[in-house]
Each structure stands twice: as structure tokens, then as C-alpha cells.
């Protein structure tokens, strides 16, 4: 693979980036989360967003702490519940650029049902899953994406479940933007974030993110040795081909880039009777008088 940048490449223009904070993080030194944060910061800055334009939603986990480390609006909810919170937030006011940044356990485990059904709603947001194939914050249990047989701090004899294939799952659910990237390749990651931001609808980026503390199998090197850029010949609008490509993972190589793309109407576009942000409708008690009069 090419272009592995340091996880801190963004540091150079930190000073004039309004998204960057000096808040100490509680992440481990060397963790892949730093580079994801930097990539988000930089992309937003390069695209001239202002902190006031952006709402970062998360659940609970190491990844989910991200909203505390960026200057933007934040909504740090409960473990597994970022997505429905984002749904409500978007319904209330769809003028923010909406991000979800959360872990693989948060998104595909505890939050699995919301993941499934909000893809069906086609919320308009960028969902960045920090997929370290482990539960980081709770100290090393297997996550839905941990490989069968892989030993963990809880599964002493190895995982007994088939791993979830998040990109194949998202494609099968009709997610209109399904991509994979790598925290160790911030250039690619930024590209993906930009493409996801440009997409109108549910844009999923499953990001391979080494957990240096608890996942000694899926390391930086493990990802680097296996990842490859999806060839240009791939037609991301072909759902069946995308599904086929999504089957490739692990030793067979890990395709990075946009696996699937499909344009479709978004959550808010499907509610045509709302023609402005919901928050902008003026409301008063007598609004119901018409309804009452019909009842006499």
C-alpha cells in the first residue's frame, strides 16, 4: 500500500484550524483514533466549514469520545444510541453538517438495530466507524468485527461468532455510500470523508483503526499489509459487484475506497410537508383551534 502518513500529519496547520482543541484526550499514545480526529479536523477546515456548522454525534466508547476533542456542536449520547439521536437531531434542524463518530461495538453491536433501520431512513450524514475490531474502553473484549477464533481479554479460547462484515451488511441494507478507509492512511481517509460529505444520504466509512493496547492481531502492520485501493475498474453503482467485492477481507486483502454508491432521496426529502428546518416553524397554542373546531 502507498502513502502511509504519520498519524499526526495534520499538526502543521493546527494553529489556524478552528476545529482543533487543546483538550487532552484520554486515548492511548499511538492509537489510530488520533489520525481519524486529525483527518476530520483537516477536512472540515479545508472545506471551509465553521465549528458552528457542524454537529458531531456519538455513543459511548473510546471512539465515541471524539466529540469532546473537536470544536463543534456535540451530542455524546449512550452506548449504541448515537444513530437515533442523530435522526432526531436532523429532523429538528437539518442545517448542520452531521457526523456520527463511534466504535464498532457501539455501531454494529449495541447499536445494530439502529444501524439497520436508519440506513433505511437514509439520514443525510457521515458515519465514521472507528473499527478497531475490539471493545477498547471496556478493555479488550471481542467486538462484532473480531475474527472467528481470535483470542481476546474475554474470549480466552477465541471468538465463537462469525465476524460481521459491515460493508456487505450496509450494501445489503441499501446504504447509498459504503466506503472503507484506514486511520494509517490519512490522505485516503480525508478523501473518503470529503466524498462522504459530498454525498446526500447515509454515508458509511468503516475505518480500520489499530487499537495498540487491546488488539495485537489487527495491528497497523496487519492492516497495511492487507489493504489495497479498490481498482478504478470497479463500478460502485453495481450492487452485486459491490457485494462481491465486500466479501474480500483479511488475508485475501482488504479493499479500501468506495465500494458502493447509489443516489436516493434522503430522510428529509421524503417528508415533503416540511419545507424548512423544523425548528424554524413558528408555533402557538391556537394553532390547534382549527382541529378543535372540526370536532364540535
Amino acid at each position, binding site marked *: 500500500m502507498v502513502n502511509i502518513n504519520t498519524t499526526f500529519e495534520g499538526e502543521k496547520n493546527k494553529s489556524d484550524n478552528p476545529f482543533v482543541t487543546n483538550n487532552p484526550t484520554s486515548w492511548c499514545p499511538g492509537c489510530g483514533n488520533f489520525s481519524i480526529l486529525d483527518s476530520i479536523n483537516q477536512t472540515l477546515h479545508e472545506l471551509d466549514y465553521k465549528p458552528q456548522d457542524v454537529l458531531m454525534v456519538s455513543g459511548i466508547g473510546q471512539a465515541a469520545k471524539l466529540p*469532546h476533542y473537536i470544536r463543534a456542536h456535540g451530542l455524546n449520547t449512550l452506548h449504541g444510541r448515537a444513530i437515533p439521536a442523530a435522526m432526531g*437531531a436532523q*429532523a429538528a434542524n437539518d442545517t448542520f453538517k452531521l457526523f456520527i463518530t463511534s466504535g464498532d461495538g457501539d455501531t454494529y453491536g449495541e447499536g445494530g438495530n439502529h444501524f439497520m433501520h436508519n440506513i433505511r431512513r437514509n439520514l443525510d450524514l457521515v458515519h465514521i466507524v472507528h473499527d478497531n475490531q475490539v471493545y477498547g474502553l471496556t478493555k479488550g473484549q471481542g467486538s462484532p468485527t473480531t475474527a472467528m477464533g481470535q483470542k481476546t481479554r474475554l474470549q480466552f479460547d477465541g471468538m465463537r461468532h462469525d465476524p460481521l462484515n459491515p460493508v456487505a451488511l450496509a450494501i445489503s441494507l441499501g446504504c447509498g455510500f459504503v466506503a472503507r478507509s484506514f486511520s494509517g492512511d490519512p490522505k485516503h481517509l480525508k478523501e473518503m470523508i470529503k466524498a462522504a460529505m459530498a454525498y446526500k444520504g447515509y454515508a458509511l466509512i468503516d475505518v480500520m483503526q489499530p487499537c495498540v493496547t487491546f488488539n495485537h492481531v489487527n495491528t497497523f502492520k496487519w492492516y497495511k499489509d492487507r489493504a489495497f485501493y479498490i481498482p478504478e475498474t470497479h463500478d460502485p453503482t453495481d450492487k452485486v459487484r459491490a457485494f462481491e467485492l465486500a466479501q474480500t477481507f483479511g488475508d485475501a486483502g482488504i479493499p479500501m475506497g468506495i465500494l458502493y454508491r447509489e443516489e436516493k432521496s434522503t430522510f428529509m426529502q421524503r417528508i415533503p410537508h*416540511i419545507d424548512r428546518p423544523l425548528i424554524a416553524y413558528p408555533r402557538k*397554542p391556537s394553532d*390547534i383551534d382549527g*382541529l378543535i373546531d372540526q370536532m364540535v
Partner: protein
Amino acid sequence: MKKTIIVAGAAGEGINTVERFIERILKKVGYEIFSYKNYMSRVRGGYNYSTIVISDKPILSIEDQADYFVALNQVAYANARLQLKEDGICLVEGDPSEEKENLIFDRSLLKEVSKSKNAFSMAAVGALLRVFGCEQEVLNDLNNSKWTDEVNASNMQAAVFGFEKTQPLFAPPENLKTRILMGGNQAVALGALSAGLSFYSAYPMAPSTGIMTYLASVEKEMHIIVEQAEDEIAGIMAAVGASSNGVRAMTGTSGGGFALKVETIGFAAVSETPIVIANVQRPGPATGLPTRTEQADLAFVATASQGEFSRIILAPLTVEDAFYTTFRAFNLADEYQVPVVILTDQLLADTTQSIPKFKTDDLKIERHLNTEITPDYKRYAFDQISGNRKYPGIDAETLIMTDSHVHDEYGAVTEEVEATLALKRKFLKRIEAIKKTLKKPLFYGDQAYETLFITWGSTYGALKDAVDELILKGEKVALLAFSDVFPLDKEVMDPYVSQAKCIINVEGNAMNQFGMILRMETGVMFDASINKYDGRPFSSAYIINEFEVINHGKH
């Protein structure tokens, strides 16, 4: 004058249609209406009935036994005598050859008159409308725009047939023609709409679904979003997400769904995001009795979610009160930035009542926001007990962090001892402030009472009717009905206890949940209790009977 009609049959046989026609027309001609649906958890078949009480004075509860019983099938007919008063009349379809009692509608004659498959039930409607003194022209209202003209016409023929079979016995009172017919779920929905509800997300669950259905039916007209969530967790979390972005938002469910919302209630509390949650109670535990009534979720709701925080529970007393109480719920949620639970039940949900038009002029939406640009704004200032709220986008500058941890005044995660204590103390202070804001209980009855009944929520209706009857019987009784049930002010009982010789707690559960909370909060003990926990609502007759048993026990 007070008469009760029961319409009984199987699910899908048109009970609701008969009920609706009778209610709508008798209300229109000036009667007071109070009706309640008693139905099984199934879609077709089984044994269901609606009880409709008709009076010239406001009524607040049903009677268990009817003056008129419309039997839509043989099972209903078999039940008729059990559900009729001694001099009650059963309306039933039959063959002249069969031995049937009371008002029999000859099947073959009916068939001649009308092709409608609902010929009998329409004839019963016609007959009853005449009994209650309606002119024949009201039958023109027996139209349903969803049906074909043909169906409406043959229905009308049957109704005329029935009309001609009876004689007027009562005359409509000349008063309340501008009343509206309202159900408890609809009243909650309208209360929310009048309060400026913008977003409602919920998962269907009897008996709460009616709130969502009504809101969905006016979604376009009211410019709101009603979202069916994938599960109850999503239902409340989406509502909290919407509220965190500034709109008034609500979710609703019954106990089983409420159970799934419990974690998010704590999130709303610690993130100080206003949220209104309707729990329309049904009997538990677990699936319990999905379409029946009980008041057994109060203790659960009062302590639901880990840790300690401030919350409000409001239990509307009547259909009318459901509207105003729901309206208040939103102002309270915004003022104190807390979860507010509207605790109703299947009784209230499936009650239809004639009530005065809601007066929206006197209502005022109070958002308690801070819309100014405030340098160094602290979303979670430790001394902010109420108001001063900002949400993302409320001004051009302020960044807002909505957080689920123990946090500092800006919302940043912290584990410091000082912040932990400050947050807790803020919640404690808030509880005290809320106690002083909530509505005092409603007192009703004989000022010189010796017996004081205590109740909450929908049980008020039957209890008030019972108190009226007991006073007529010469008993010195009064009632105290709590709509604002939690938190309770320590002093709330002080004005009432010294006079009462006997305090009787009346509630629709077995464990006296409210009575126990009252005892815990105020130290006041009740001397006796009247409970109902068979899934069916209280009637005033039941309360009077229990009261007499208690009194007898004392003598």
C-alpha cells in the same frame, strides 16, 4: 337523568361504529357523553364491548351495568343479563320463533328493509336515538364518508326501521351544543400540539398508539414530523436528539416500551434535555393484559434509571385535564430541563367524553431559552436550576455540548469530586424547586369531611362520581386527587390531615403505590385502601361498595 348503553360483540363486528354514531349524535343534540371501550387483545372475534353513559349532567365514570344492551352476536346476547340492570332492556336480532327477551329485531323483516350487513346494528342505533328523544332528521348524520353511497343508504333504511320501533323516553337537555367529543389519547396529542410539539417518535404499543395515530393524521396540517421508530429505545433517543436541537419533542408508549426507554431517561436528565414521555399504562407484568387498564407503573416510573436526578410525573385526572396537563408538561420540561412523564392509562386512553372546547387563549408557551449571545455561556452552570437554555444554532456563535457523563459546566467530561458533588446538588435543588412549582391536589367534596379519599390520575373520575353519590347518601366525605404525583411536597398533606378521621387511599393497583410514596414523602399514613387490579376500571358503585365494607369493618 343518567342512562347507560352497552354495545357488545366480537372484534370486527362494528361495535366502534355503533358507539361512534350514538355518541356523536347524542352529544350534538345536547347530552353529556362518557364512554369506555372494553376489548380483548385480538383483531377479530372474542368478546368486546363499549359502555356509553348518557346524561344531562357531566359524568366522569362508567357504570358496570346498562339500561340498554345492544347484543351484536349470540355470545353477547348470552352475557346480556349479567351486564344489564334489573329493568334493563336488551336489543337483539332474532327470529320471531326464537324465545328472546326485550327488544327483538326480526331478522327477516330487517333483511327486507335493508341490504346492509350491519342492518341490525344500524337499527339499534336508530332505536336508541329515538329513545333519547332525537328527531328523525338526525338519522341523516349516519353517514360515513369512507363508505359507498349505497352502503350509507341501506344503513339509513335500517336505522329508520329501528327508529320507528321505539318511542321517545327522554328529552335532550338544552345546553351544551358546543361541546366536543374527545378521547384521552387525542387530548394528550392535542395538548402536545398546542404546546408546539414538532417531533414525535414512538413505536406502536397498545394502549398508547392512539396518540401517535392522531398526530400522524394531522402531520401535514400541523407541519410536524411523526416518526415510527424501529424500537422504543430509538423512539425516545430520537426525541431527545430532536429536543437537544431545540424543538419540542415527545415519545409515548406503554409500560413494556417504557422499560426500554429507561436508560435514555437518565440521559435526558443528565444532559438536561427537556423531554416529554407518555406512558399509557396497561396491566403488567411483562405483556400482561395488553388492552386493559391498571395504575401500576407509578413506582416504576418514579425511580426508573440508574442514579439520582430530577424528574416530573403528571397523571391527568380526566380527558379534559389530559389536554391541559400535557400542555403544562412541555413548559415544565423546558423550565427545569428534565424528563416529564405523562402517566395515563387504558381507561383514559379509551374513554370518549363530551367536554368543553379547549381554550387556547389563556395558554402560553414558555421555552425558558437564552437567545442572546452570551460570552462564556455555561450550558450546565451548576447554579442554573431553571431556564437559560441554549441549543445548537440558537445563536450564531455558541457551541453546545450535550453530554451523558458527569461533566463540568460546559459539558466536558470530568471525574472531579467537585463537579460530581455540584451536579448532584444541582439536581437536588431542582427537585425542591419543582416541588414548589407543581400543582396542588384537587380537593372536592364535603368541607366538613370525616373521611378523606386520596387518589391520583384517572381514578379521580369514578371517585368523584362516588363522592357525589355518598354525599347524597349523607356521608361526610371528600377527595383529594393528585395530577402532579411526583415529586411530592413534604407539606402537601398538612392542610388536610388534622380534619380527616379516616384516610382512604384509592388507586388502580394492589400495592398502593401512590399511597406508599405519599407516606414516604410526607409521613401521612392511610387507614384503609380501595384497590382494583383485575384489569377493569373502577366504577363509582364499586368504590361505594368498598367504602361500605370498610365502614362496616369499623363499626
